[in-house]
């Protein structure tokens, strides 16, 4: 378990992390979501013991990150932002160095290196110098070193940043395939990533946690959660709008700008909207071209909570 309490980091008079507290249980893939400069990396640097908190505590499986740093770090795997490593080494040499430092010796060392090169598909470049690798491969080397000692806690700072869609997919698959007993914290500003891999997300803005929820929970907060998008053939949208507004469950109706679809928002708490709408459609004998109930847009929630006004 990771416990973070009242964590603060100041750079001069600027407060990058402002009184953050949260706990993470084993089996959680936690997403740090927030705009650039929100304080995600700074928080990760403190959790991994690289940067000293101005105040507040972090403990990793009961080990305080300041007072008992090495014990905590022994249980952590960390991919810093941009996956820095010793570029003049070969992949093999670099992983062997990390294994030595992590205390994997002899046969265990070879097995660990084998395992991670398999997990992140590095085998074909093992003998190559890291500086000659493509960005995707470098990122994999960074992931490999973080996974080498099979840590209970993985902290990955923007693990998919700058990768192409296939590589992004691979990294996400890899995260999903990790053991259920681990804690994984990943930071991202890509919303789809949260839906794809996280079981919980913290939205961070200006050094504070502004939302803490599951991806589904976040979606439920979207204004268009459960709204219905409707397009009817050969009928004027404004005519449909008028009729729809009279339905008991309807809160309001908008004509969506681009394609002339109707967006029908339900009254809070009502569940009858779809049924009412279907009755109406068959009574009027309108030909439906499109009917879709929306899940809610994460980016709408994200924008709302990180642009100033409270959710």
């Amino acid at each position, binding site marked *: 378990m990771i416990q973070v309490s009242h964590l603060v980091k100041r750079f001069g008079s600027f407060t990058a992390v402002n009184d953050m507290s949260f706990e993470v249980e084993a089996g959680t893939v936690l997403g740090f979501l927030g705009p650039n400069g929100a304080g995600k990396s700074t928080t990760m640097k403190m959790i991994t013991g690289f940067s000293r908190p101005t105040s507040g505590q972090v403990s990793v499986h009961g080990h305080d990150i300041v007072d008992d740093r090495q014990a905590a770090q022994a249980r952590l795997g960390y991919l*810093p932002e941009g996956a820095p490593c010793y570029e003049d080494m070969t992949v093999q040499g670099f992983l062997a160095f990390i294994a030595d430092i992590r205390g994997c010796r002899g046969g265990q060392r070879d097995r660990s290196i084998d395992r991670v090169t398999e997990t992140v598909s590095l085998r074909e470049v093992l003998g190559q110098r890291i500086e000659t690798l493509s960005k995707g491969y470098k990122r994999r080397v960074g992931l490999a070193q973080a996974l080498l000692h099979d840590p209970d806690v993985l902290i990955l700072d923007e693990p998919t940043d700058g990768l192409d869609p296939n590589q992004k997919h691979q990294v996400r698959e890899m995260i999903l395939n990790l053991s259920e007993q681990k804690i994984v914290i990943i930071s991202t500003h890509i919303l789809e990533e949260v839906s794809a891999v996280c079981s919980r997300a913290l939205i961070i803005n200006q050094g504070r946690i502004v939302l803490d929820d599951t991806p589904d929970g976040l979606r439920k907060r979207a204004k268009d959660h459960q709204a219905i998008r409707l397009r009817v053939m050969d009928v004027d949208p404004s005519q449909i709008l008028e009729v729809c507004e009279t339905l008991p469950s309807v809160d309001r109706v908008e004509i969506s700008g681009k394609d002339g679809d109707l967006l029908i928002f339900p009254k809070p708490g009502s569940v009858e909207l779809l049924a009412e709408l279907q009755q109406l459609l068959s009574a009027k004998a309108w030909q439906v071209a499109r009917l879709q109930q929306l899940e809610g847009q994460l980016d709408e929630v994200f924008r709302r909570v990180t642009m100033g006004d409270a959710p």
Partner: protein
Amino acid sequence: MKSLSTIIKREFLSYFATPLAFVFILVFLVLSSAFTFYLGQFYERGQADLLPFFNFHPWLYLFLIPSVSMRLWSEERKTGSIELLLTLPITLWDAILGKFLAAWALIGLALAGTFPIWLTVNYLGQPDNGAIAAGYMGSWLMAGAFLAVGCCMSALTKNQIIAFILTGITCLTLVLAGFPMVLNFFEGWVPSLILDLIAGLSIIAHFIAISKGVLALTDVVYFVAMILLWLYLTHLALVAKAAD
């Protein structure tokens, strides 16, 4: 201990992953020979010792050591690999000592590469080989002091050029502190206690005896203390600045 030796090994081998080690050793050998044979009038003196060789070492180190030390921490900070290194379960001292010792070993290797000069004096005459060994030892210790200054300067900045210049200036100051012209400048208006201190801190003052082959305990203690002091300052610098 295990972590320390792992870091020394990685650092030392990393010098050979690029031409850096070879260039450094080559330049060291060429310059030290050139200084000794041309400027030092090695033959003309007609004496079987290595005084002209060792005499030039402080000046040689003044720019050769910063060129090795400048990258030690600056580069790690620049590329961000310091974040990787310092989140491994090692102590900060493991990292500082590991880097220092590996670089010191490289300098030792370069120094050992000058053995043909030693062979030459033995061929030409009957030198005091004990004195020569003391000279080598003293030179290596002095290099360690320069290097420790370089470690500290490198920890202070992400910019290797700045680290190079700061190291050069600091070492030059430490070398010059013992010269009569500097001491004369202070003489008269600075209390004699301080004057002694300035002279006592000078690298030259402690190296002169060594270059003549006298390895006195006080001089050894001076260089070891210098090394420890500057490595300690490196530690302070990293605690304060590593994450900036």
